[in-house]
């Protein structure tokens, strides 16, 4: 081997080493849970709820449109099932919801209903491998993926690097629980946003073809455990709903092809009932919208015979 070959092979070996080293450090940081990734407080909050839960019969997973419109307590009362609202945010996507559901099912084997609820434009966002990464739980979560998906999750290790130095420095600090974020079982809303102009519709072209990848995993997971699975659209500003009819038709078609039970009604919300976003119900109306959603899906729910008259909610 001449000098040039030696140099090239050594440099290549170095690049491989550097890559593996960075992956290893990143995984260690993730596994000891010191990383301040987006919406970590919310994610930890839901994990804590899951860990404390028992006997859950109906569980909601989804994004912030769910977090702001379904009260687990109210839904328990209405449906006479032990209910949990495990809403994350759009950042986590179906991938994060899938990981969360695995945890919930592991802890609550008697689950009867899983309701997935996301805002309409969820189908237009890229697959959230970063959401998968942050909610992965254990190495099994990586191993179960197809090679291409594994690579995408590893890629997310780099693209979602955040502030690793801060995380490492955080090892030496006592962390205080930040409770300021917490509202009514979800992220506290900011000031109401005013929607005065006519909304633009969600373009059909924005639909991600592979978007249902992790939704299909949710479907298989529920099928394996004999769980009744429903899909709901989150509430949305009426102006935007009316402007997005083509988009809604398209995504309903895509969702139906997955075999999921789709409740295709969209609650078109007037401006006055919105909170800090076009798909966030104002907090005082959370119970009211819970009732609306309950009425929408009551016939699709599996309600076991109650053991007692008290229902717990999480």
């Amino acid at each position: 081997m001449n000098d040039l070959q030696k140099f090239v092979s050594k440099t290549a070996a170095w690049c491989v080493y550097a890559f593996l080293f960075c992956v290893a450090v990143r995984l260690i940081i993730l596994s000891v849970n010191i990383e301040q990734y987006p919406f970590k407080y919310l994610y930890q909050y839901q994990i804590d709820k899951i860990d404390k839960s028992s006997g859950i019969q109906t569980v909601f997973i989804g994004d912030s449109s769910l977090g702001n419109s379904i009260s687990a307590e109210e839904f328990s009362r209405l449906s006479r099932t032990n209910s949990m609202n495990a809403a994350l945010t759009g950042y986590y996507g179906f991938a994060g919801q899938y990981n969360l559901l695995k945890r919930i099912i592991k802890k609550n084997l008697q689950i009867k209903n899983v309701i997935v609820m996301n805002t309409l434009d969820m189908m237009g966002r890229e697959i959230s491998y970063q959401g998968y990464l942050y909610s992965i739980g254990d190495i099994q979560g990586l191993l179960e993926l197809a090679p291409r998906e594994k690579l995408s999750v590893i890629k997310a290790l780099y693209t979602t690097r955040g502030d690793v130095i801060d995380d490492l420095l955080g090892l030496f600090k006592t962390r205080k629980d930040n409770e300021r974020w917490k509202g009514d079982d979800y992220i506290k809303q900011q000031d109401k946003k005013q929607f005065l102009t006519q909304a633009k519709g969600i373009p059909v072209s924005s639909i991600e073809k592979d978007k249902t990848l992790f939704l299909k995993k949710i479907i298989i997971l529920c099928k394996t455990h004999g769980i009744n699975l429903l899909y709901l659209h989150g509430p949305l500003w009426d102006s935007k709903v009316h402007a997005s009819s083509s988009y809604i038709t398209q995504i309903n078609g895509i969702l139906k092809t997955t075999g999921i039970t789709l409740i295709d009604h969209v609650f078109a919300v007037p401006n006055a009932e919105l909170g800090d976003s076009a798909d966030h119900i104002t907090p005082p109306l959370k119970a009211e919208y819970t009732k609306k959603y309950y009425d929408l899906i009551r016939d699709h729910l599996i309600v076991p015979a109650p053991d007692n008259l008290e229902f717990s909610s999480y």
Partner: protein
Amino acid sequence: MLFNSIDFAIFLPIVFFLYWAIRDLKIQNLFLLTASYVFYGFWDWRFLGLIFISSIVDYLVGINLQYAQKETRRKALLLFSIAINIGILFIFKYYDFFIENFINVFRLFGTEFQAKRLDIVIPVGISFYTFQTLSYSIDVYRRKITPQKDIIAFFAFVAFFPQLVAGPIERAKELLPQFLQKRAFDYTQAVDGMRQILWGLFKKMIVADTCAYYVNDIFAHYGDYSGSTLLLGGILFAFQIYGDFSGYSDIAIGTARLFGFTLMRNFAYPYFSRDIAEFWRRWHISLTSWFRDYVYIPLGGSNTGYLRKICNIFIIFLVSALWHGANWTFIVWGLINAFCFLPLIFLGTNRRNLDTVAQNRIVPTWHELRDMVFTFFIIVLGWIFFRSENVYQGWVVIKKIASKGLFDAVHEFPSKLIVLILFMLIFEWVQRDKQHALEFTPRVHYALRYGVYSVLVFLLVFFTVEPQAFIYFKF
């Protein structure tokens, strides 16, 4: 193409493999020339014409100087080269500045001077390659070197991509012969080059770009911040410009070594200087020595009367300031440095600190530390004007620093950045007698070496902020 870009990460290995696959020296040079033009063309291919003009003019002037017997003809040829090179530089870099100032001066006397600004983009690296080719013509004129007949080698010398856009400004005497001799791949050189690139990337992408984040904010809102925050801004800019420019130089020198070339050293740990004269021997060495050899010494240097000496010092700092750009802030920066330099000339102490500070010792003495800190703050004073948008802004910043606000709490203390700067400084301090901070002797245990590389790679992957263009590109 930026050194800290994906484009360059793809470009470099391709050029490296193809370059070493070519056996014939002439074809290798032609390939380097092509690669260099591609490298420059990535930024703006239209300005390749300027490099071509500079190259062809100095090539022909060099050839003609060899055959010219009469001194008047030789002088005319040199003046022609200077006129073309400085002319191009003037049009692209200084025309608008002078026109604006002429208009203002005439206005002061109540006369309207009619002239249009050109408003043209300054071609990247124009000051660097212009000075490089100019030094060739001057050296040929002075008969210090023989003119180069191999046009490809000469063009490749002018456009050599590692140092084309931000130096080091190479002398033909040193670099040109390297294009004429067969180059063999040197494993040790290449490995050390890679280390130098790694250190350069750390200084640029971690230290300089993170500093830029704070500096840009502080200087953009200088009216709102207290003296303490503004002083912090000045200090951080000192590290930003050092990390940026010396980082670029390290990457350039390291890259050149991969191709079997040795470029001159451009920085020698300037912030460990004990006086301003030592600082200027350690900062942007290729430019400082250029001005010394082609301006200061021809003017008489230090071997003249006091008045002439003072004059020469001011001229050298003035041209150095103008080299950086057409702005009064650079001129004030140059004047500050000149004023701080003069006492050393008068006291005859400008060559007192020629050695490395605290040689053969780990820690400096209190005197050395005091001198280094004092020199650093003088330099920071100059950098404040250098960084400011205009002289007024620089003046306000200095005034606020010199007020009670100096003792206010800093707006946002960048603790992580300070840790990184300290890491850089401690590392460079330990390695200050080496060419670059990652130049390890075999005595250094491999675990330590690899540990350092790993930390640097980790930081480069996980700590980089929004990439910034190199500051010196605009010069």
